[in-house]
């Protein structure tokens, strides 16, 4: 601000020397920048000791029209400023920074990840025998929640009138028995064995026609493992989940049919364990904190946001070393008003630290791109409805 002021001052002087003043050179004519206090309100949440303030985002395009500042969306502006930086990426989890986007859109991505991205999950369980202590319906529910490692994009939805086929159903079988004189055993999820040829249980037929072909509960026209997508990587489930425990003489025999679905129908279809974001914390020291106080400040923070630096003259001064680690516990601003004045805790409104924990069906980075695609599809649907 000050530099542009002095610029206009000099140009005004020149103009006055020439004998006229352009209206645009007057110091109170709006520039394209917001005054600092409004810029702060627009871009930061202030986390005061009692409550956070300025939590809303200013969306209306004409919000600053009286100051000559345009708040409307310019796509080129968005494209130039939007940034993504991956900080952690494994097969199951990723964390990345998304900068320069409105929470309305970041939240849409999060909501889609949780509730609208399809996966495969066990929906139907045919129980042939269950003498364990766990009841059929509880057992079926537990099976439903086991993550299945199969790419849902290779399958269709099974609608009401469809027959279960190799295109929309994955069949597993589970048959475990505990010996009469043996020790008790735990049935783990890896006992679920994939049946690429579909169901093996026969449907009870009414007429006893011995020549009729026996019908099973699925009608596969070909084996799933003959498909190129599955021949090299067979369908498995997340191993090491205890399904049930069996005492001596107990037995479970069942068949489980997995179909495609989305998380808003039932959480078992959610592709993420969870997905969340937080805004980037910003810790600002409003004054120099030196000596004893610096030590106290460093002690106060449980996650070690502050460090102490030694100045040339031998005194110690606190500095903010790891603001990203701040959990906003507000411990540092608690002991009286003077601490509140010394430290400002803020959050950057358009900087999101986004975390995705996949359940295993798809890697997290694929989940995110799929989520963005779903939002695009939604827009496309509205556009076509309107035209």
């Amino acid at each position, binding site marked *: 601000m000050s530099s542009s002021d002095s610029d206009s001052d000099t140009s005004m002087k020149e103009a006055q020397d020439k004998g006229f003043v352009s209206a645009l050179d007057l110091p109170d004519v709006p520039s394209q920048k917001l005054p600092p206090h409004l810029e702060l309100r627009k871009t930061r949440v202030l986390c005061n000791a009692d409550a956070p303030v300025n939590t809303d985002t200013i969306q209306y395009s004409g919000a600053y029209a009286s100051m000559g500042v345009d708040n409307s969306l310019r796509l080129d502006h*968005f494209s130039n400023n*939007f940034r993504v930086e*991956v900080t952690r990426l494994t097969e199951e989890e990723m964390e990345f920074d998304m900068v320069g986007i409105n929470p309305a859109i970041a939240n849409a991505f999060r909501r889609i990840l949780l509730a609208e991205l399809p996966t495969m999950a066990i929906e139907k369980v045919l129980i042939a025998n269950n003498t364990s202590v766990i009841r059929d319906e509880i057992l079926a529910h537990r099976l439903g929640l086991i993550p299945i490692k199969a790419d849902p994009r290779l399958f269709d939805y099974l609608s009401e009138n469809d027959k279960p086929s190799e295109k929309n159903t994955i069949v597993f079988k589970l048959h475990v028995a505990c010996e009469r004189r043996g020790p008790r055993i735990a049935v783990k999820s890896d006992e679920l064995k994939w049946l690429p040829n579909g169901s093996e249980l026969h449907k009870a037929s009414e007429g006893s026609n011995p020549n009729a072909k026996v019908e099973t509960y699925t009608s596969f026209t070909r084996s799933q493992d003959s498909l190129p997508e599955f021949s090299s990587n067979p369908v498995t489930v997340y191993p090491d989940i205890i399904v049930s425990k069996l005492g001596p003489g107990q037995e479970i025999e069942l068949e489980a049919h997995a179909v495609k679905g989305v998380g808003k129908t039932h959480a078992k279809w959610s592709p993420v364990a969870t997905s969340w974001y937080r805004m980037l914390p910003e810790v600002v020291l409003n004054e120099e904190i030196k000596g004893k106080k610096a030590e106290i400040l460093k002690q106060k923070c449980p996650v070690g946001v502050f460090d102490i630096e030694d100045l040339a003259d031998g005194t110690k001064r606190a500095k903010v070393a790891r603001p990203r680690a701040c959990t906003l516990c507000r411990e540092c601003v608690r002991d009286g008003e003077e601490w509140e004045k010394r430290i400002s805790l803020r959050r950057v409104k358009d900087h999101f630290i986004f975390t995705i924990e996949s359940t295993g069906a798809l890697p997290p980075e694929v989940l995110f791109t799929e989520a963005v695609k779903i939002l695009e599809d939604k827009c496309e649907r509205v556009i076509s409805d*309107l035209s």
Partner: protein
Amino acid sequence: MEHTSFGDQRNATFSLTEEDHTLANALRFTLNQDPRVMFCGYSIPHPSEARVNIRVQTTGDPAREVLKDACQDLMQMCQHVRSTFDNAVADFKKGSSRE
């Protein structure tokens, strides 16, 4: 799906089925960022019915066109997000395989 008062194209309520806050809130944002929009907001009439009503009032253009443009903007933003994200992931993978 669209309800306009007779002869007035500027103000309309759009009723989208099978949608919720996910799309409506994102659209409200892009609509609000459009200088032609005087007012916009959305509501979900009943929580167990999958439907949102989006209200758009403009300064003169037909509300339907403005909503269409808002969708278009959102879609372009999504495309940009996707390509930026893919690049960032590729960069990260390249960086970590070198180590």
